[in-house]
C-alpha cells in the first residue's frame, strides 16, 4: 500500500463522518471527502509530512468544500440554516472534529478485538442465538463458544466505561 493510499484509508472514515454531521447527506459527504483527498493528493508535495499538518489540511479542505457547496447551492442551506452557524464560528466545527475523532477511535478498539471472539460475541448477544446454535453454525464446540463469549465480555469490561458499553456493542452489529 502506497503512502497516499495509507493516508486515505486512515482518514477516510472519520472525515466522512465529519462531513456527514455537517451536511446530513451520506452521498454528498462521501463525495466531498473524495474531492478533499483529490486536492490533498494534488498538493501533497506542499503539505508537510507531519501527521498533524495532514489532518488539519484534510479537515480544513472538507470544511471549505462544504462551505463552497452551500454557497453554490443556496437552495440547500440545510446545515447553515438549521444550526445557524456562522462561518467564523470555529468552535462548532471543532466539536464535530472531536466527535469524528472519538468515533474513529471507538471503531479502532472494536477492530482490535479478535475476529473469532467478535463473531461469537455478536451472535450471542445481538442475534441472541444459544450457545448450541452458535456452535453448530460455526462448527466449533459449545465450550469454545463459552470461552470466546467470556473473552469478549472481558475485553469490553476491562476496556470500557460501563456507561458506554452499549455504544461499543452497536459496533458489533456488522
Amino acid at each position, binding site marked *: 500500500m502506497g503512502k497516499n493510499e495509507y493516508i486515505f484509508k486512515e482518514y477516510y472514515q472519520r472525515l466522512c463522518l465529519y462531513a456527514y454531521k455537517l451536511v446530513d447527506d451520506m452521498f454528498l459527504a462521501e463525495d466531498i471527502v473524495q474531492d478533499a483527498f483529490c486536492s490533498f493528493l*494534488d498538493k501533497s508535495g506542499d503539505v508537510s509530512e507531519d501527521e498533524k499538518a495532514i489532518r*488539519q*489540511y484534510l479537515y*480544513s*479542505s472538507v470544511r471549505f468544500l462544504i462551505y*463552497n457547496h452551500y454557497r453554490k447551492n443556496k437552495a440547500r442551506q440545510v446545515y447553515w440554516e438549521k444550526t445557524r452557524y456562522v462561518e467564523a464560528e470555529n468552535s462548532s466545527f471543532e466539536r464535530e472534529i472531536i466527535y469524528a*475523532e472519538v468515533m474513529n477511535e471507538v471503531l479502532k478498539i472494536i477492530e482490535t478485538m479478535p475476529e473469532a471472539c467478535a463473531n461469537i460475541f455478536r451472535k450471542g448477544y445481538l442475534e441472541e442465538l444459544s450457545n448450541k446454535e452458535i456452535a453448530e453454525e460455526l462448527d466449533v464446540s459449545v465450550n469454545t463458544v463459552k470461552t470466546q463469549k467470556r473473552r469478549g465480555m472481558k475485553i469490553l469490561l476491562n476496556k470500557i466505561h460501563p456507561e*458506554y458499553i452499549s*455504544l461499543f456493542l452497536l459496533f458489533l452489529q456488522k
Partner: protein
Amino acid sequence: MSPFCLLNVTIYIEMTNKPRYIASLINRYLTDDLSNDEYHDLLEWLAEDPANKQLFQRFTDSKHYQKDIKFLLGLDLEVAWQKTKSKRIKTDPKVSIRSNWMKIAVAVLLIFVGAWFVWQNPVRSIQSDDSTTSEERSHDIDPANGGANLVRSDGSIIKIESEELIIDQGGVHLASGEKERTIEFTKSEQLAKTMNTLEVPKAKYLKILLADGTKVWINSMSKLHFPSDFSVVERRVILEGEAFFDVAEDGDRPFIVESKETEIKVLGTEFNVNSYGKTVETALKQGSVLVERGEKSLVLKPGEYAEANEKGIKKSIVDLDYVLAWKNDEFLFHNDNIITIASQISRWYGVEVKFQGEVMYDRLYTGSVSRKAKLSETMDMLEFVSDLSFKLDGNKLIIKKEEKI
C-alpha cells in the same frame, strides 16, 4: 491560483491541536483510562461551553450515534479509494495543446494542475522566467497514424495505409484513407480458413471490424492473427502486444483471444489485453471473461484485471480509465515512472529512447497528454513537469537530467 491558498492561511492558523486532545480525553474516558489531571482538563472543557456538554452527551444517547455507526460501517474504503483515484484523473481539465511556449505552460499547468507529485521530494517551484523553456526544436515527429502490414497465408505482405479496416469472408476492406479498396481472399483461403496477420508497427495503430461484428483496436507494435473466416464452433484470434476488444455477442461461438499461452474466452463483452511484457494483462470493461493459462483459470467481473504469466494468474481491481487511455487517444500516467512513460512514447512516435547520466527512475508522475500531440509538444510537457531534459537526435529521443542554469 486555487482558493485553497486562502484557506490554508485563514484556517490553518485558527485550528489548533485542541480538538485532537479533547477527543483523546473523551476516548480515554469512554474506555475508563483517564488520569486525574486529564479528568480535570475534560471537566474544564465541558464547563467552557454548554455545546461541549451536548457533544459529550451524544455518546450516551444511542439514538444519536446509531445512525452514525451504520454510516461508518457502510463505508467501503477500497471502493472509495478507487473512486477517488479515478476522480482525480477526470477532473483534470483537458486543454488543447499549442506550440507557443507560454500557451503550453498554461496548458500544462491546467492539465497537470498539481497532478504530478513526488511524495518524497517537495514540488519544485515553477519558474516563470524562460530558463527552462525548450529551445526551438530542430525537427519534429508526428504522432502515430493508422496503418499496418497485412501478412497473408502465402507469406505475401501488403502495406495498408488506413485507420480502419473491415474484414469479412470476402476479404479485407480499407474503410478510410486515400484509397478505398478491398484485398480479396482467394477461394482456397476462404475454404481452408487460413490465418492472416495484421502487423501494426511503431507509430501506427489500427481499428478493425471483424466478420462477426467484433471491433478491435490494435495499439502500436502489436500483431493480430485472424482467420479468413471463423469456424462454426469458436472465434479465435491470436494477439501479440495490446488490443481492446468489443466482442459481438454470439452465444454459440465463444470468442477466444490467445496470447502467450494464455486464453481469454468470452461470449460478448468489452475488454483490453496487453501482452507487451511477459505477463498477459486482461482488463474487463463489460460482461465477463474467462482467463485460462495451463491448468489455471479465473473469471473476471467488470473493473477487474488479471495478470497471467508462468507463475499463474492473479486478479485485482483496475482503473479502467487508465488501462483504456490509449484507446481514447490519451497518454494517461498515474504514478508511473519515466521508463513506463518513455516506452509508451517510443511505441507511439516510433522513436528510440536513450537515457543518459543520472536519471531518477523511481520518481512517479501523474497526468495526461493527448496522443494527437506532436512529439515536441509531448516533450515540452514532460520537460515542464519533470527535472529531465528531452532532446531529439534524428530518431533517438535522449532523456537526461536537466542541467541547472
